[in-house]
Protein backbone atom coordinates (compact mmCIF):
# COMPACT_ATOMS: atom_id res chain seq x y z
CA UNK A 1 0.00 0.00 0.00
CA UNK A 2 2.76 2.35 1.05
CA UNK A 3 4.73 1.59 -2.08
CA UNK A 4 1.74 2.22 -4.30
CA UNK A 5 1.12 5.59 -2.76
CA UNK A 6 4.77 6.51 -3.19
CA UNK A 7 4.72 5.76 -6.86
CA UNK A 8 1.53 7.81 -7.22
CA UNK A 9 3.25 10.76 -5.59
CA UNK A 10 6.23 10.29 -7.87
CA UNK A 11 3.99 10.23 -10.91
CA UNK A 12 2.26 13.38 -9.74
CA UNK A 13 5.56 15.16 -9.26
CA UNK A 14 6.85 14.14 -12.65
CA UNK A 15 3.59 15.25 -14.25
CA UNK A 16 3.78 18.68 -12.66
CA UNK A 17 7.39 19.11 -13.65
CA UNK A 18 6.46 18.15 -17.18
CA UNK A 19 3.72 20.77 -17.22
CA UNK A 20 6.05 23.33 -15.73
CA UNK A 21 8.69 22.71 -18.35
CA UNK A 22 6.22 22.96 -21.18
CA UNK A 23 4.92 26.18 -19.69
CA UNK A 24 8.41 27.58 -19.35
CA UNK A 25 9.17 26.53 -22.88
CA UNK A 26 6.09 28.32 -24.14
CA UNK A 27 7.08 31.42 -22.22
CA UNK A 28 10.57 31.24 -23.70
CA UNK A 29 9.18 30.97 -27.18
CA UNK A 30 6.91 33.93 -26.67
CA UNK A 31 9.81 35.92 -25.35
CA UNK A 32 11.96 35.42 -28.43
CA UNK A 33 9.02 36.22 -30.64
CA UNK A 34 8.38 39.46 -28.83
CA UNK A 35 12.02 40.55 -29.21
CA UNK A 36 12.18 38.87 -32.66
CA UNK A 37 14.77 36.17 -33.18
CA UNK A 38 18.51 36.71 -32.85
CA UNK A 39 20.62 35.40 -35.68
CA UNK A 40 24.24 34.46 -35.14
CA UNK A 41 26.80 35.01 -37.88
CA UNK A 42 29.93 32.89 -37.52
CA UNK A 43 33.11 34.54 -38.81
CA UNK A 44 36.53 32.91 -38.78
CA UNK A 45 39.92 33.27 -40.40
CA UNK A 46 42.75 35.69 -41.01
CA UNK A 47 44.73 36.86 -38.01
CA UNK A 48 45.62 39.98 -39.92
CA UNK A 49 41.94 40.90 -40.02
CA UNK A 50 40.86 39.68 -36.59
CA UNK A 51 41.13 43.14 -35.00
CA UNK A 52 38.99 44.88 -37.55
CA UNK A 53 36.58 41.95 -37.75
CA UNK A 54 36.01 42.21 -34.01
CA UNK A 55 35.55 45.98 -34.24
CA UNK A 56 32.95 45.46 -36.97
CA UNK A 57 31.15 42.83 -34.92
CA UNK A 58 31.02 45.07 -31.86
CA UNK A 59 29.75 48.07 -33.76
CA UNK A 60 27.23 45.99 -35.68
CA UNK A 61 25.63 44.80 -32.44
CA UNK A 62 24.54 48.43 -31.99
CA UNK A 63 23.36 48.80 -35.58
CA UNK A 64 21.30 45.62 -35.59
CA UNK A 65 20.47 44.29 -32.13
CA UNK A 66 19.06 41.03 -33.47
CA UNK A 67 22.26 39.91 -35.10
CA UNK A 68 25.15 38.54 -33.12
CA UNK A 69 28.48 38.24 -34.90
CA UNK A 70 31.01 35.77 -33.48
CA UNK A 71 34.59 36.28 -34.64
CA UNK A 72 37.60 34.01 -34.24
CA UNK A 73 41.07 33.99 -35.76
CA UNK A 74 43.46 31.15 -36.51
CA UNK A 75 44.73 32.21 -39.92
CA UNK A 76 43.27 32.52 -43.41
CA UNK A 77 43.85 28.82 -44.05
CA UNK A 78 41.88 27.86 -40.94
CA UNK A 79 39.00 30.15 -41.91
CA UNK A 80 38.81 28.86 -45.47
CA UNK A 81 39.06 25.25 -44.23
CA UNK A 82 36.06 25.90 -41.97
CA UNK A 83 34.09 27.59 -44.76
CA UNK A 84 34.78 24.69 -47.08
CA UNK A 85 33.38 22.32 -44.46
CA UNK A 86 30.31 24.57 -44.17
CA UNK A 87 30.71 25.24 -40.43
CA UNK A 88 30.87 29.05 -40.65
CA UNK A 89 29.07 31.81 -42.54
CA UNK A 90 31.94 34.11 -43.47
CA UNK A 91 35.67 33.40 -43.82
CA UNK A 92 38.12 36.29 -43.44
CA UNK A 93 41.15 35.90 -45.65
CA UNK A 94 44.24 37.90 -46.46
CA UNK A 95 44.93 35.67 -49.45
CA UNK A 96 42.81 34.43 -52.33
CA UNK A 97 41.06 31.10 -52.11
CA UNK A 98 42.93 28.36 -53.97
CA UNK A 99 41.25 26.53 -56.82
CA UNK A 100 41.42 23.17 -55.05
CA UNK A 101 39.82 24.69 -51.94
CA UNK A 102 36.99 26.04 -54.09
CA UNK A 103 36.52 22.61 -55.68
CA UNK A 104 36.30 20.93 -52.28
CA UNK A 105 33.76 23.56 -51.17
CA UNK A 106 31.63 22.80 -54.22
CA UNK A 107 31.90 19.09 -53.54
CA UNK A 108 31.02 19.43 -49.84
CA UNK A 109 28.26 21.99 -49.95
CA UNK A 110 27.26 22.35 -53.61
CA UNK A 111 27.98 26.08 -53.53
CA UNK A 112 30.74 28.19 -55.04
CA UNK A 113 32.63 30.44 -52.62
CA UNK A 114 31.95 34.09 -53.33
CA UNK A 115 34.61 36.72 -52.78
CA UNK A 116 34.21 40.28 -51.44
CA UNK A 117 37.07 42.78 -51.28
CA UNK A 118 36.45 44.84 -48.15
CA UNK A 119 39.69 46.81 -47.94
CA UNK A 120 43.43 46.73 -48.28
CA UNK A 121 46.38 46.21 -46.03
CA UNK A 122 50.01 47.04 -46.44
CA UNK A 123 52.26 44.24 -45.27
CA UNK A 124 54.93 46.07 -43.31
CA UNK A 125 58.48 44.89 -42.68
CA UNK A 126 59.36 45.58 -39.07
CA UNK A 127 62.71 46.00 -37.30
CA UNK A 128 63.57 47.12 -33.76
CA UNK A 129 63.37 50.88 -33.24
CA UNK A 130 67.14 51.10 -32.55
CA UNK A 131 68.00 49.49 -35.86
CA UNK A 132 69.65 52.11 -38.14
CA UNK A 133 68.22 50.48 -41.27
CA UNK A 134 65.49 52.58 -42.93
CA UNK A 135 64.77 50.94 -46.24
CA UNK A 136 65.11 47.54 -47.78
CA UNK A 137 64.55 46.10 -51.24
CA UNK A 138 62.44 43.07 -52.05
CA UNK A 139 65.55 41.27 -53.24
CA UNK A 140 67.33 41.87 -49.94
CA UNK A 141 64.27 40.51 -48.13
CA UNK A 142 64.36 37.47 -50.35
CA UNK A 143 68.05 36.90 -49.60
CA UNK A 144 67.25 37.09 -45.88
CA UNK A 145 64.19 34.83 -45.86
CA UNK A 146 64.45 32.39 -48.77
CA UNK A 147 65.82 28.88 -48.44
CA UNK A 148 69.05 29.48 -50.39
CA UNK A 149 69.30 33.19 -49.53
CA UNK A 150 72.78 34.56 -48.94
CA UNK A 151 72.13 37.13 -46.21
CA UNK A 152 72.18 35.90 -42.61
CA UNK A 153 74.07 38.69 -40.79
CA UNK A 154 73.32 42.37 -40.41
CA UNK A 155 76.87 43.15 -41.59
CA UNK A 156 75.92 41.63 -44.95
CA UNK A 157 73.58 44.62 -45.32
CA UNK A 158 76.25 47.01 -44.02
CA UNK A 159 74.49 47.53 -40.73
CA UNK A 160 75.77 47.41 -37.17
CA UNK A 161 73.09 47.49 -34.50
CA UNK A 162 73.93 49.63 -31.48
CA UNK A 163 73.72 48.12 -28.01
CA UNK A 164 74.33 44.49 -28.92
CA UNK A 165 77.32 42.37 -29.90
CA UNK A 166 75.17 39.96 -31.88
CA UNK A 167 75.27 40.24 -35.64
CA UNK A 168 72.97 37.41 -36.69
CA UNK A 169 69.64 38.37 -38.24
CA UNK A 170 66.85 36.87 -36.14
CA UNK A 171 64.18 36.03 -38.71
CA UNK A 172 60.63 36.16 -37.44
CA UNK A 173 57.98 34.58 -39.58
CA UNK A 174 54.43 33.23 -39.32
CA UNK A 175 53.03 29.73 -39.00
CA UNK A 176 52.03 28.15 -42.27
CA UNK A 177 48.28 28.50 -41.54
CA UNK A 178 48.66 32.23 -42.00
CA UNK A 179 47.58 34.12 -45.11
CA UNK A 180 50.34 36.63 -44.42
CA UNK A 181 52.86 33.78 -44.60
CA UNK A 182 51.57 32.74 -48.01
CA UNK A 183 51.37 36.31 -49.28
CA UNK A 184 54.98 36.92 -48.25
CA UNK A 185 56.10 33.66 -49.83
CA UNK A 186 54.36 34.50 -53.08
CA UNK A 187 55.31 38.17 -53.40
CA UNK A 188 58.73 38.34 -51.74
CA UNK A 189 60.17 34.85 -52.12
CA UNK A 190 58.58 34.19 -55.53
CA UNK A 191 57.01 31.00 -54.15
CA UNK A 192 60.36 29.63 -53.03
CA UNK A 193 60.50 28.12 -49.57
CA UNK A 194 61.48 29.88 -46.37
CA UNK A 195 64.89 29.26 -44.79
CA UNK A 196 64.35 26.85 -41.90
CA UNK A 197 65.08 28.15 -38.42
CA UNK A 198 62.89 31.24 -38.46
CA UNK A 199 60.78 31.81 -35.35
CA UNK A 200 57.25 31.11 -36.53
CA UNK A 201 54.71 33.10 -34.56
CA UNK A 202 51.07 32.33 -34.03
CA UNK A 203 49.66 35.78 -34.74
CA UNK A 204 50.32 39.14 -36.34
CA UNK A 205 50.66 40.83 -32.97
CA UNK A 206 53.22 38.32 -31.64
CA UNK A 207 55.52 39.06 -34.58
CA UNK A 208 55.58 42.77 -33.81
CA UNK A 209 55.98 42.15 -30.08
CA UNK A 210 58.96 39.85 -30.57
CA UNK A 211 60.58 42.31 -32.99
CA UNK A 212 60.05 45.05 -30.42
CA UNK A 213 61.78 42.92 -27.78
CA UNK A 214 64.68 41.76 -29.99
CA UNK A 215 67.27 44.24 -31.28
CA UNK A 216 68.55 42.01 -34.06
CA UNK A 217 65.18 40.86 -35.36
CA UNK A 218 63.30 41.42 -38.59
CA UNK A 219 59.69 40.44 -39.13
CA UNK A 220 56.64 41.04 -41.33
CA UNK A 221 53.06 41.76 -40.29
CA UNK A 222 50.07 43.95 -41.12
CA UNK A 223 50.75 47.68 -40.79
CA UNK A 224 47.94 48.05 -38.24
CA UNK A 225 50.03 46.29 -35.61
CA UNK A 226 52.85 48.85 -35.30
CA UNK A 227 53.94 49.77 -31.76
CA UNK A 228 56.40 52.33 -30.44
CA UNK A 229 59.13 49.69 -30.05
CA UNK A 230 59.35 48.91 -33.73
CA UNK A 231 60.06 50.66 -36.98
CA UNK A 232 58.42 50.01 -40.35
CA UNK A 233 60.91 49.89 -43.21
CA UNK A 234 60.36 51.65 -46.52
CA UNK A 235 60.46 49.29 -49.46
CA UNK A 236 62.88 50.21 -52.25
CA UNK A 237 61.55 49.81 -55.78
CA UNK A 238 62.64 51.07 -59.20
CA UNK A 239 60.53 54.21 -58.65
CA UNK A 240 61.90 55.04 -55.21
CA UNK A 241 61.34 53.91 -51.66
CA UNK A 242 57.79 53.80 -50.32
CA UNK A 243 56.51 53.68 -46.78
CA UNK A 244 53.56 51.45 -45.87
CA UNK A 245 50.86 54.13 -45.66
CA UNK A 246 47.19 54.29 -46.52
CA UNK A 247 47.81 56.40 -49.66
CA UNK A 248 50.64 54.22 -50.91
CA UNK A 249 48.55 51.11 -50.44
CA UNK A 250 45.54 52.61 -52.26
CA UNK A 251 47.63 53.76 -55.19
CA UNK A 252 49.48 50.41 -55.10
CA UNK A 253 52.94 52.00 -55.32
CA UNK A 254 53.82 50.17 -52.12
CA UNK A 255 54.72 46.72 -53.46
CA UNK A 256 53.41 44.68 -50.53
CA UNK A 257 49.82 45.93 -50.53
CA UNK A 258 47.15 43.25 -50.57
CA UNK A 259 43.40 42.91 -50.53
CA UNK A 260 41.45 41.96 -47.44
CA UNK A 261 38.76 39.50 -48.42
CA UNK A 262 35.57 37.95 -47.15
CA UNK A 263 34.31 34.66 -48.51
CA UNK A 264 30.80 33.26 -48.26
CA UNK A 265 29.31 30.06 -49.66
CA UNK A 266 27.20 31.09 -52.62
CA UNK A 267 25.43 34.42 -52.84
CA UNK A 268 24.91 35.67 -49.25
CA UNK A 269 21.33 36.09 -48.05
CA UNK A 270 19.45 37.76 -45.23
CA UNK A 271 21.48 38.79 -42.21
CA UNK A 272 24.84 37.85 -43.75
CA UNK A 273 24.16 39.95 -46.84
CA UNK A 274 23.07 42.91 -44.70
CA UNK A 275 26.22 42.57 -42.61
CA UNK A 276 28.55 42.54 -45.61
CA UNK A 277 26.73 45.50 -47.16
CA UNK A 278 27.17 47.37 -43.89
CA UNK A 279 30.93 46.57 -43.86
CA UNK A 280 31.20 48.09 -47.35
CA UNK A 281 29.26 51.19 -46.25
CA UNK A 282 30.89 54.43 -45.10
CA UNK A 283 30.44 53.45 -41.45
CA UNK A 284 32.08 50.05 -41.82
CA UNK A 285 34.94 51.48 -43.83
CA UNK A 286 35.52 54.19 -41.24
CA UNK A 287 35.97 51.49 -38.58
CA UNK A 288 38.43 49.74 -40.85
CA UNK A 289 40.45 52.94 -41.18
CA UNK A 290 40.45 53.52 -37.42
CA UNK A 291 41.94 50.05 -36.94
CA UNK A 292 44.90 50.83 -39.15
CA UNK A 293 43.81 49.24 -42.42
CA UNK A 294 43.20 50.81 -45.78
CA UNK A 295 39.55 51.32 -46.74
CA UNK A 296 38.23 50.77 -50.25
CA UNK A 297 39.36 53.81 -52.23
CA UNK A 298 36.03 54.74 -53.83
CA UNK A 299 34.34 54.86 -50.44
CA UNK A 300 37.26 56.76 -48.92
CA UNK A 301 37.20 59.37 -51.66
CA UNK A 302 33.43 59.75 -51.32
CA UNK A 303 33.90 60.58 -47.64
Amino acid at each position, binding site marked *: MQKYRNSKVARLISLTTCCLFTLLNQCGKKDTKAGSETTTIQVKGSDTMVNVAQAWAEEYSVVDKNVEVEVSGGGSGVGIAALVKGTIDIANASRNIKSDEATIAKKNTGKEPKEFIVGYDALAVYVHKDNPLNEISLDQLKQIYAEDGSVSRWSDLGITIPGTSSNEIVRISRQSSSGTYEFFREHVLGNK*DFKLGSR*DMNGSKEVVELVGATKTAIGYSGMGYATENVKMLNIKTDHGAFAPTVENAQTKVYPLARSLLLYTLGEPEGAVKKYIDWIMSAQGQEIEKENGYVPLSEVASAN
Partner: protein
Amino acid sequence: MSSNLTESTLTLPDAIPKRVKRVGRPRWAIIGEQALELLIRISGISAIVFVLAIFFFVFKEALPVLYSHNFSIKEFLFSTQWYPTSVSNVRYGTFALLVGSVTVTLLSMAIAVPFGLGAAIYISEFCGPRQKETLKIIIELLAAIPSVVWGFIGLTVISKLITTITGTAVGVNLLNGSIILALMSVPIIVSIGEDALKAVPDSFREAGMAMGTTRWQLILRVLLPAAKNGLLAAVLLGVGRAVGETMAVLMATGHSVKIPHGVFDSVRTLTANIAAELGEAAAGSPHYRVLFLTGILLFVITFIVNLTADFVIRGIKRK
Protein backbone atom coordinates in the same frame (compact mmCIF):
# COMPACT_ATOMS: atom_id res chain seq x y z
CA MET B 1 20.60 -23.33 14.80
CA SER B 2 21.56 -25.87 12.20
CA SER B 3 19.37 -28.54 13.68
CA ASN B 4 16.47 -26.10 13.67
CA LEU B 5 16.93 -25.40 10.02
CA THR B 6 17.13 -29.03 8.97
CA GLU B 7 14.01 -29.71 10.97
CA SER B 8 12.00 -27.11 9.16
CA THR B 9 13.20 -28.27 5.76
CA LEU B 10 12.16 -31.74 6.66
CA THR B 11 8.71 -30.83 7.94
CA LEU B 12 7.77 -28.13 5.45
CA PRO B 13 9.25 -29.01 2.08
CA ASP B 14 6.80 -26.93 -0.01
CA ALA B 15 6.92 -23.83 2.14
CA ILE B 16 10.62 -23.20 1.58
CA PRO B 17 10.55 -21.85 -1.98
CA LYS B 18 7.63 -19.57 -1.16
CA ARG B 19 9.46 -18.24 1.86
CA VAL B 20 12.58 -17.57 -0.14
CA LYS B 21 10.55 -15.54 -2.53
CA ARG B 22 8.91 -13.41 0.10
CA VAL B 23 11.75 -12.87 2.59
CA GLY B 24 14.52 -12.71 -0.01
CA ARG B 25 15.27 -9.55 -1.91
CA PRO B 26 12.61 -8.25 -4.28
CA ARG B 27 13.14 -8.81 -7.97
CA TRP B 28 13.87 -5.14 -8.81
CA ALA B 29 16.73 -5.16 -6.33
CA ILE B 30 18.29 -8.18 -8.01
CA ILE B 31 17.84 -6.67 -11.47
CA GLY B 32 19.16 -3.35 -10.21
CA GLU B 33 22.23 -5.00 -8.79
CA GLN B 34 22.87 -6.88 -12.00
CA ALA B 35 22.45 -3.71 -14.01
CA LEU B 36 24.86 -1.89 -11.74
CA GLU B 37 27.37 -4.70 -12.04
CA LEU B 38 27.08 -4.56 -15.82
CA LEU B 39 27.55 -0.79 -15.76
CA ILE B 40 30.70 -1.08 -13.67
CA ARG B 41 32.02 -3.83 -15.90
CA ILE B 42 31.39 -1.68 -18.97
CA SER B 43 33.21 1.29 -17.46
CA GLY B 44 36.11 -0.99 -16.61
CA ILE B 45 36.39 -2.34 -20.13
CA SER B 46 35.70 1.05 -21.71
CA ALA B 47 39.29 2.16 -21.07
CA ILE B 48 40.54 -0.63 -23.30
CA VAL B 49 37.90 0.15 -25.91
CA PHE B 50 38.83 3.83 -25.95
CA VAL B 51 42.55 3.16 -26.30
CA LEU B 52 41.93 0.71 -29.12
CA ALA B 53 39.52 3.11 -30.81
CA ILE B 54 42.06 5.95 -30.65
CA PHE B 55 44.78 3.68 -32.00
CA PHE B 56 42.52 2.54 -34.80
CA PHE B 57 41.45 6.07 -35.73
CA VAL B 58 44.95 7.55 -35.72
CA PHE B 59 46.37 4.66 -37.74
CA LYS B 60 43.48 4.79 -40.19
CA GLU B 61 44.06 8.48 -40.81
CA ALA B 62 47.82 8.11 -41.16
CA LEU B 63 48.26 4.87 -43.08
CA PRO B 64 47.35 5.92 -46.66
CA VAL B 65 50.31 8.30 -46.79
CA LEU B 66 52.75 5.44 -46.27
CA TYR B 67 51.76 4.04 -49.67
CA SER B 68 51.81 7.34 -51.56
CA HIS B 69 54.65 7.64 -54.06
CA ASN B 70 56.23 10.90 -52.88
CA PHE B 71 56.54 9.93 -49.23
CA SER B 72 59.45 8.03 -47.77
CA ILE B 73 59.60 6.86 -44.19
CA LYS B 74 63.35 7.45 -44.21
CA GLU B 75 62.83 11.11 -45.06
CA PHE B 76 60.09 11.35 -42.42
CA LEU B 77 62.35 10.05 -39.64
CA PHE B 78 65.80 11.35 -40.57
CA SER B 79 65.39 14.55 -42.59
CA THR B 80 65.35 17.95 -40.94
CA GLN B 81 63.48 19.54 -43.86
CA TRP B 82 59.91 20.29 -42.79
CA TYR B 83 58.13 21.99 -45.69
CA PRO B 84 54.55 20.69 -45.58
CA THR B 85 52.98 23.55 -47.56
CA SER B 86 55.76 24.26 -50.04
CA VAL B 87 54.62 25.26 -53.53
CA SER B 88 57.47 23.66 -55.43
CA ASN B 89 58.95 20.93 -53.26
CA VAL B 90 56.98 19.43 -50.38
CA ARG B 91 59.17 17.72 -47.78
CA TYR B 92 58.07 15.99 -44.59
CA GLY B 93 61.13 15.53 -42.37
CA THR B 94 60.45 15.46 -38.66
CA PHE B 95 63.95 14.84 -37.33
CA ALA B 96 64.41 18.44 -36.14
CA LEU B 97 61.03 18.31 -34.40
CA LEU B 98 61.91 15.01 -32.75
CA VAL B 99 65.23 16.44 -31.55
CA GLY B 100 63.31 19.49 -30.31
CA SER B 101 60.91 17.35 -28.27
CA VAL B 102 63.71 15.21 -26.82
CA THR B 103 66.02 18.10 -25.89
CA VAL B 104 63.25 20.14 -24.26
CA THR B 105 62.17 17.10 -22.24
CA LEU B 106 65.71 16.17 -21.15
CA LEU B 107 66.65 19.71 -20.14
CA SER B 108 63.38 20.20 -18.27
CA MET B 109 63.96 16.94 -16.38
CA ALA B 110 67.51 18.01 -15.55
CA ILE B 111 65.94 21.02 -13.84
CA ALA B 112 62.81 19.40 -12.42
CA VAL B 113 64.14 16.13 -10.96
CA PRO B 114 66.57 17.62 -8.40
CA PHE B 115 64.05 20.27 -7.41
CA GLY B 116 61.13 17.88 -7.31
CA LEU B 117 62.83 15.12 -5.38
CA GLY B 118 64.47 17.65 -3.06
CA ALA B 119 61.11 19.18 -2.29
CA ALA B 120 59.57 15.74 -1.76
CA ILE B 121 62.32 14.79 0.71
CA TYR B 122 61.98 18.09 2.53
CA ILE B 123 58.21 17.85 2.83
CA SER B 124 58.25 14.24 3.90
CA GLU B 125 61.25 14.20 6.25
CA PHE B 126 62.24 17.66 7.45
CA CYS B 127 59.39 20.07 7.94
CA GLY B 128 56.80 20.20 10.69
CA PRO B 129 53.15 19.26 10.22
CA ARG B 130 51.88 22.81 9.76
CA GLN B 131 54.48 23.80 7.22
CA LYS B 132 53.87 20.49 5.48
CA GLU B 133 50.17 21.25 5.03
CA THR B 134 50.84 24.74 3.68
CA LEU B 135 53.52 23.52 1.28
CA LYS B 136 51.35 20.69 -0.01
CA ILE B 137 48.40 22.98 -0.65
CA ILE B 138 50.58 25.48 -2.51
CA ILE B 139 52.24 22.78 -4.60
CA GLU B 140 48.85 21.36 -5.53
CA LEU B 141 47.84 24.87 -6.55
CA LEU B 142 50.92 24.97 -8.81
CA ALA B 143 49.68 21.81 -10.52
CA ALA B 144 46.30 23.40 -11.18
CA ILE B 145 47.61 26.30 -13.29
CA PRO B 146 46.46 25.80 -16.91
CA SER B 147 49.21 25.20 -19.44
CA VAL B 148 48.26 28.20 -21.56
CA VAL B 149 48.91 30.41 -18.53
CA TRP B 150 52.34 28.82 -18.18
CA GLY B 151 52.97 29.55 -21.85
CA PHE B 152 51.96 33.13 -21.26
CA ILE B 153 54.42 33.43 -18.37
CA GLY B 154 57.15 31.95 -20.58
CA LEU B 155 56.38 34.36 -23.39
CA THR B 156 56.39 37.48 -21.22
CA VAL B 157 58.18 37.05 -17.88
CA ILE B 158 60.79 34.33 -18.39
CA SER B 159 61.65 35.47 -21.90
CA LYS B 160 62.45 38.94 -20.55
CA LEU B 161 64.45 37.47 -17.65
CA ILE B 162 66.52 35.34 -20.01
CA THR B 163 67.35 38.23 -22.34
CA THR B 164 68.31 40.62 -19.53
CA ILE B 165 70.35 38.11 -17.52
CA THR B 166 72.18 36.33 -20.32
CA GLY B 167 72.15 39.04 -22.99
CA THR B 168 71.01 36.59 -25.64
CA ALA B 169 68.99 37.96 -28.56
CA VAL B 170 65.73 36.03 -28.30
CA GLY B 171 64.07 35.00 -25.05
CA VAL B 172 61.74 32.34 -26.43
CA ASN B 173 64.04 29.35 -26.76
CA LEU B 174 64.95 25.87 -25.56
CA LEU B 175 65.89 27.09 -22.09
CA ASN B 176 62.64 29.00 -21.69
CA GLY B 177 60.53 26.02 -22.74
CA SER B 178 62.47 23.74 -20.42
CA ILE B 179 62.05 26.03 -17.43
CA ILE B 180 58.31 26.21 -18.05
CA LEU B 181 58.03 22.44 -18.46
CA ALA B 182 60.12 21.92 -15.32
CA LEU B 183 57.80 24.20 -13.36
CA MET B 184 54.84 22.23 -14.71
CA SER B 185 56.20 18.79 -13.87
CA VAL B 186 57.69 19.63 -10.45
CA PRO B 187 54.28 19.44 -8.69
CA ILE B 188 53.68 15.94 -10.07
CA ILE B 189 57.15 14.76 -9.04
CA VAL B 190 56.75 16.28 -5.58
CA SER B 191 53.35 14.87 -4.75
CA ILE B 192 54.02 11.35 -6.03
CA GLY B 193 57.58 11.32 -4.63
CA GLU B 194 56.29 12.43 -1.25
CA ASP B 195 53.71 9.63 -1.28
CA ALA B 196 56.46 7.14 -2.06
CA LEU B 197 58.58 8.34 0.86
CA LYS B 198 55.58 8.33 3.17
CA ALA B 199 54.95 4.71 2.22
CA VAL B 200 58.29 3.66 3.71
CA PRO B 201 57.37 2.18 7.12
CA ASP B 202 58.37 4.19 10.16
CA SER B 203 60.14 1.13 11.55
CA PHE B 204 62.87 1.75 8.89
CA ARG B 205 63.43 5.24 10.25
CA GLU B 206 63.38 4.05 13.85
CA ALA B 207 65.83 1.26 13.09
CA GLY B 208 68.14 3.71 11.32
CA MET B 209 68.07 6.16 14.18
CA ALA B 210 68.66 3.37 16.66
CA MET B 211 71.82 2.54 14.72
CA GLY B 212 72.96 6.13 15.26
CA THR B 213 72.67 7.41 11.66
CA THR B 214 72.51 11.09 10.92
CA ARG B 215 69.47 12.39 9.07
CA TRP B 216 71.36 12.54 5.76
CA GLN B 217 72.66 9.02 6.15
CA LEU B 218 69.14 7.87 6.92
CA ILE B 219 67.77 9.53 3.77
CA LEU B 220 70.55 8.50 1.42
CA ARG B 221 71.13 4.96 2.65
CA VAL B 222 67.71 3.88 3.89
CA LEU B 223 64.78 5.94 2.61
CA LEU B 224 65.84 6.59 -0.99
CA PRO B 225 66.67 2.92 -1.72
CA ALA B 226 63.45 1.82 -0.04
CA ALA B 227 61.30 4.27 -2.00
CA LYS B 228 63.17 3.78 -5.30
CA ASN B 229 60.19 2.44 -7.25
CA GLY B 230 57.83 5.20 -6.27
CA LEU B 231 60.41 7.90 -6.92
CA LEU B 232 61.12 6.48 -10.38
CA ALA B 233 57.41 6.44 -11.12
CA ALA B 234 57.26 10.10 -10.04
CA VAL B 235 60.07 11.06 -12.42
CA LEU B 236 58.58 9.11 -15.31
CA LEU B 237 55.17 10.72 -14.87
CA GLY B 238 57.02 14.03 -14.99
CA VAL B 239 58.65 12.93 -18.27
CA GLY B 240 55.24 11.96 -19.60
CA ARG B 241 53.86 15.39 -18.83
CA ALA B 242 56.86 17.07 -20.48
CA VAL B 243 56.70 15.00 -23.69
CA GLY B 244 52.98 15.50 -24.13
CA GLU B 245 52.73 19.16 -23.21
CA THR B 246 51.70 21.30 -26.15
CA MET B 247 50.38 24.76 -25.51
CA ALA B 248 53.10 25.97 -23.15
CA VAL B 249 55.97 24.79 -25.35
CA LEU B 250 54.26 26.17 -28.43
CA MET B 251 54.38 29.60 -26.83
CA ALA B 252 57.73 29.43 -25.03
CA THR B 253 60.13 27.62 -27.37
CA GLY B 254 60.02 30.05 -30.30
CA HIS B 255 58.57 27.49 -32.72
CA SER B 256 61.53 27.23 -35.07
CA VAL B 257 62.42 24.15 -37.15
CA LYS B 258 66.07 23.74 -36.28
CA ILE B 259 68.42 21.35 -34.52
CA PRO B 260 69.53 23.35 -31.48
CA HIS B 261 73.25 24.00 -30.93
CA GLY B 262 72.80 25.48 -27.47
CA VAL B 263 70.18 26.24 -24.87
CA PHE B 264 69.52 29.67 -26.39
CA ASP B 265 68.39 28.30 -29.76
CA SER B 266 64.69 28.14 -30.55
CA VAL B 267 63.17 24.74 -31.25
CA ARG B 268 59.86 23.27 -32.31
CA THR B 269 58.37 20.15 -30.72
CA LEU B 270 56.27 17.41 -32.33
CA THR B 271 53.24 18.29 -30.23
CA ALA B 272 53.42 22.03 -30.90
CA ASN B 273 53.77 21.33 -34.60
CA ILE B 274 50.60 19.26 -34.69
CA ALA B 275 48.70 21.90 -32.72
CA ALA B 276 49.83 24.70 -35.00
CA GLU B 277 49.23 22.97 -38.32
CA LEU B 278 46.33 20.55 -38.02
CA GLY B 279 43.77 23.36 -38.14
CA GLU B 280 44.67 24.41 -41.67
CA ALA B 281 45.50 21.02 -43.15
CA ALA B 282 42.58 19.93 -45.31
CA ALA B 283 41.16 16.62 -44.06
CA GLY B 284 42.53 13.78 -46.13
CA SER B 285 45.42 15.74 -47.63
CA PRO B 286 48.97 14.32 -47.36
CA HIS B 287 49.88 17.09 -44.90
CA TYR B 288 46.97 16.02 -42.67
CA ARG B 289 48.01 12.38 -42.81
CA VAL B 290 51.64 13.16 -42.06
CA LEU B 291 50.54 15.09 -38.98
CA PHE B 292 48.68 11.97 -37.84
CA LEU B 293 51.84 10.00 -38.50
CA THR B 294 53.67 12.39 -36.16
CA GLY B 295 50.96 11.50 -33.66
CA ILE B 296 51.90 7.83 -34.04
CA LEU B 297 55.55 8.78 -33.54
CA LEU B 298 54.55 10.40 -30.24
CA PHE B 299 52.60 7.27 -29.32
CA VAL B 300 55.71 5.17 -29.94
CA ILE B 301 57.89 7.46 -27.83
CA THR B 302 55.55 7.38 -24.83
CA PHE B 303 55.12 3.64 -25.28
CA ILE B 304 58.90 3.15 -25.13
CA VAL B 305 59.16 5.38 -22.04
CA ASN B 306 56.41 3.43 -20.27
CA LEU B 307 57.86 0.07 -21.27
CA THR B 308 61.38 0.88 -20.06
CA ALA B 309 59.89 2.22 -16.84
CA ASP B 310 58.07 -1.06 -16.42
CA PHE B 311 61.20 -3.10 -17.04
CA VAL B 312 63.31 -0.95 -14.74
CA ILE B 313 60.79 -1.22 -11.93
CA ARG B 314 60.54 -4.98 -12.38
CA GLY B 315 64.32 -5.23 -12.37
CA ILE B 316 64.49 -3.31 -9.12
CA LYS B 317 61.78 -5.49 -7.59
CA ARG B 318 63.65 -8.70 -8.44
CA LYS B 319 66.72 -7.46 -6.59
